[in-house]
């Protein structure tokens, strides 16, 4: 086992690093060992690049195919893969783009990558049936404050100083291409309904409340915190709107405080 580990570690180094003498391999092939290693090196980079292109189609459209290839190459040289499932690769692209000098002229790129990653995860998230609204009627009103709402595994919130929801919509098949970047930030809610991932805008108070719920706060606690910051927050409308979007899958009653 140790010999296997040692030999494959050397092979791994060959794939990740530059060509180097490799006595591990039979040199009697009609092509050189370096060519064999180069095939594996190309496979490694190509598979990760395809994974990035699959997860970030809007980033690729925004920067163009050629720039995206360069960006992907630079990202892959810094970020190895940690999962045998290629759909798990590329989570760090948003952070990477924040410090990526060649893309500095597109300041919204990092936030768009965060939104696209949320959509990518939403697409592959496990299934969960939406909560039937009638179940709320089975809760005694004095228990409302203690409700712990369970959020669908595909649901994510992404906030940005840029109009990321508008940019996302512009890159959908029926999108429009008139975006005023100066119009300010948007908060995106990513959801999956009938297997289709969609993005819609949340208001600040909705997002504040929803973040509290997603952090595991009870309904009363999250609502009080939001009302403190946003006195006009409408709990009932928000709860029902999110229910209509399939955000809730279940609820339990938290301990009485």
């Amino acid at each position: 086992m140790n010999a296997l580990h040692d030999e494959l570690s050397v092979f791994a180094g060959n794939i990740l690093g530059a060509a180097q003498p490799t006595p591990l391999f039979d040199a009697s092939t009609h092509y050189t060992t370096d060519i064999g290693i180069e095939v594996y090196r190309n496979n490694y980079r190509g598979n990760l690049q395809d994974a990035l292109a699959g997860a970030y189609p809007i980033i690729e459209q925004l920067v163009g195919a050629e720039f995206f290839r360069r960006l992907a190459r630079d990202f892959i040289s810094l970020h190895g893969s940690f999962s045998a499932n290629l759909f798990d690769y590329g989570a760090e692209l948003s952070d990477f783009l924040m410090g990526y000098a060649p893309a500095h002229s597109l300041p919204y790129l990092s936030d768009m990558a965060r939104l696209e990653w949320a959509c990518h995860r939403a697409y592959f998230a496990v299934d969960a049936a939406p909560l039937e609204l009638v179940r709320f009627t089975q809760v005694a009103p004095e228990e409302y404050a203690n409700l712990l709402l369970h959020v669908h595994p595909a649901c994510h919130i992404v906030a940005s100083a840029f109009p990321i929801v508008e940019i996302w919509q512009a890159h959908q098949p029926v999108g429009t291409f008139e975006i005023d970047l100066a119009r300010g930030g948007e908060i995106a809610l990513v959801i999956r309904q009938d297997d289709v991932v969609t993005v819609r805008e949340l208001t600040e108070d909705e997002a504040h409340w929803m973040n509290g719920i997603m952090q595991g706060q009870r309904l009363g606690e999250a609502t009080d915190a939001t009302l403190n910051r946003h006195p006009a927050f409408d709990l009932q409308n928000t709860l029902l709107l999110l229910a209509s979007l399939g955000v809730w899958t279940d609820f339990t009653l938290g301990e009485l405080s």
Partner: protein
Amino acid sequence: MNSPATVALPCVAGIGLRAPHYQEVLDTLPKLGWVEAHSENFFGGGAPLNTLLKAREHYAVSLHGVGMGLASPDQLSATHLDALKHLCDVVQPASVSEHLCWNTVGGKVFNDLLPFPHTFAALDHVVSRVAHVQEVLGRQLLVENLSSYLSFTSSEMSEGEFLAELVQRTGCGILFDVENLYVNVRNLGVDADEFIRAIPAHAVGEYHLAGFSVRDGCLVDTHDHPVHDDVWTLYEKVLHHIGPRPTLIEWDGDIPALSVLMAEANKAQQRMEACDECFA
């Protein structure tokens, strides 16, 4: 432990079910013998899984994994195996297969199918992992021979001998990729006849056929071309020695129209039927 391959796929030609064809297949329900899908593409839920479940209503499904890394020195990923187990429970596939390769060392994952030295120590290691996977899944696993671009000087047996031992000790089956064998013959000077003789015919549960490309004299298993004439010839030889088995046309790059895939599958079907007579 030395039981025949227990594959519930019909003994006809099938095709790899890939994303560009999902909609057409579900809309038109073409006459396909069976379909094979890459397991990892359906981990999780949502649209991918539901597409596969719809296909499952009309076709026998084979789940073909590319990520288990049966020979990796690192510990087998419980998360990965759990995801495969869940998928098998939901899909109830006719066959489940993985590759005889590694993909993880020291926490670094290579999303590729990598060769390893065929040593006795590696055999012990792979035996215990295949046994564990079969125990968790509660079913037989088919293990596929690999296409390689390098071979290790430390190998102590051929790949065919390695697979034969693996079958003997775990009761797993073999997914015989005829194109992979051809690639190894051309790249590494592997003896095709020795491979065919070495593996137990009764354990072969499925064949794969695909096209390759050539880079700097090296045949690369790219699955982006029609099956090469030499591979058809080798397939006929394999059919003659081992007998007809469910046979898959794999196409993963530059994926052509569904009709092209079906025509390739038909070529395999004709060869299987011609061979049926020699096994009748």
